[in-house]
């Protein structure tokens, strides 16, 4: 299939006029621009905007920190004694989360941490307005990550022909 070449049209320049007409038409076409701070587009529910944390669900298992390709998750925890579940039972310990920080200046938004978390403590949120003036301020701690938990949307409904098995 050869590329069409019309050498004949060198003097009439029909292509130029067609292009000129095109741009003239767009001069009078409404602009699809969204004026950002005043109006905002809603990101899709699956958008990987920011990682939210549910600190209650976290068991300090460190899987996310270990699997992270660029090690941007910092976790510290301690063991807390917990009352036995039934009277007279053995005293147990539970891991308590002290520090959970994600350095968003390092994070490459791959989502491996969300995927490996066995206790559903991490979620993707489409929230994106968390830019800062200082790079160091991009390290966000437990409380901030928990705030984002509220912005986690319900997962989108699936196409009906989807996974039935």
């Amino acid at each position, binding site marked *: 299939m*050869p*590329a069409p070449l019309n050498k004949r049209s060198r003097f009439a320049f029909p292509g130029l006029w067609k292009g000129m007409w095109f*741009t003239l038409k767009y001069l009078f076409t409404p602009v699809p621009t969204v004026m950002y701070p005043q109006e905002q587009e809603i990101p899709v529910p699956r958008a*990987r905007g920011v990682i939210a944390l549910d600190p209650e669900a976290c068991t300090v298992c460190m899987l996310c920190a270990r*699997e992270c*390709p660029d090690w941007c998750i910092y976790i510290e925890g301690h063991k807390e004694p917990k009352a036995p579940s039934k009277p007279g039972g053995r005293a147990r310990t539970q891991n308590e989360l002290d520090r959970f920080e994600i350095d968003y200046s390092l994070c490459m938004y791959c989502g491996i941490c*969300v995927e490996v978390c066995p206790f559903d403590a991490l979620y993707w949120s489409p929230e994106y307005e968390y830019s800062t003036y200082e790079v160091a301020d991009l390290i966000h701690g437990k409380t901030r990550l928990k705030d984002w938990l509220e912005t986690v949307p319900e997962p989108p409904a*699936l196409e009906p022909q*989807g996974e*039935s098995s």
Partner: protein
Amino acid sequence: MSDEYRAMMHRSEVAVSVELQTQDMTLNIGPQHPSTHGVLRLVAQVDGERITSVEPVIGYMHRGYEKLAEVRSYAQMTALVNRIDWVSGFASEVPFIVAVEKLMGIEAPERAQWIRLILTELFRISSHMVFTSSYPLELGATTPLFHVLRERERVLELIEGMTGGRFHPNFNRVGGIKPAAGGGKTQKKVSMDIPEGWLDATRATMERVMLSTHQSDTLVTGNELFKARTVGVGVIPGDKAVEYGLSGPNLRASGVAYDLRKHEYHLPYDQVDFDVISAPGGDCYDRYWVRLQEIRESVKIVLQAIDKIPDGPLRAKAPRVLKVPKGQIYVRGENPKGEFGYYLISEGGQKPYRLKIRSTSFSNLSILPWVLKGALVPDLVAVMGSLDFVLGDVDR
């Protein structure tokens, strides 16, 4: 004519030729130059505006992916490989995953394979649209950029709606596509199957993409100035293209109708109907034209695929911790830019022993010194743009 006179003539001619000889100027183009697509550096010897030789200097964006692969697990590498060629991340993800799957003896279920195919084609459309938008820009026409990128944004929205990422989907997993994440009880991260309404949105978007290619035809393809800049410029004959290891649209524009999608069936390309676009000229115009036509073919493929996508599971059984048995394999796929291959050697264990990445742009770039010999400086920009390379893909 006496000998003396002849000698004198000779001497005068020598004098004239010596006088007219000018020193070539070494022109450093890049690493920071508006049209080097990043950080390519070309050391060009120019005689006025004519280029006598060009030497590409690469490596400014070397990120060491091949070495990195040796210290990263397979799951982590999946997130990394789509950053090699960031314009078409998914297309370079698939061969890597297929290589791991083949070594482990796993095959992805059909539905997953079709989703891979659709996403690959969407990324092909997106990548070619980047080309058709930015190539006229390099020739000085700014308007096509905005009109094409506006429609590309719709394609990226589709990709984001499906995978959550716009450029780096990280959507492939060994044995299928991104699964129900984690093992928790809540319903919030159940499945990454096709979201509701996505197929209809795809159909609508594909129409817009077709419309956009027509707009490109109106604004760019038929434009006489554009033709004057590209027709007959940077001609690469078919045999030279093969010699230099060109692949993809660059090869097909030189008259060699070779498309890996017709030869390597790790995705169900054999079940869709599409043409291999090729053009005989081998010049910049043909390379542009082939890519524009390939957008249309990809639209055809996507529309067929969303009708054919079968029901079924998204992921075959694969161990949670990937241990790839000993062995080696080379898997290649048709990236939007050409042949993209991974040579994977595993010694067992969770990490590759060695991963050789056959990146497309690196090979496509290698013809630059040959094709630019004797060209003009403006042609350099035209040729460089028409080869459509991504510097991350060159340097890895």
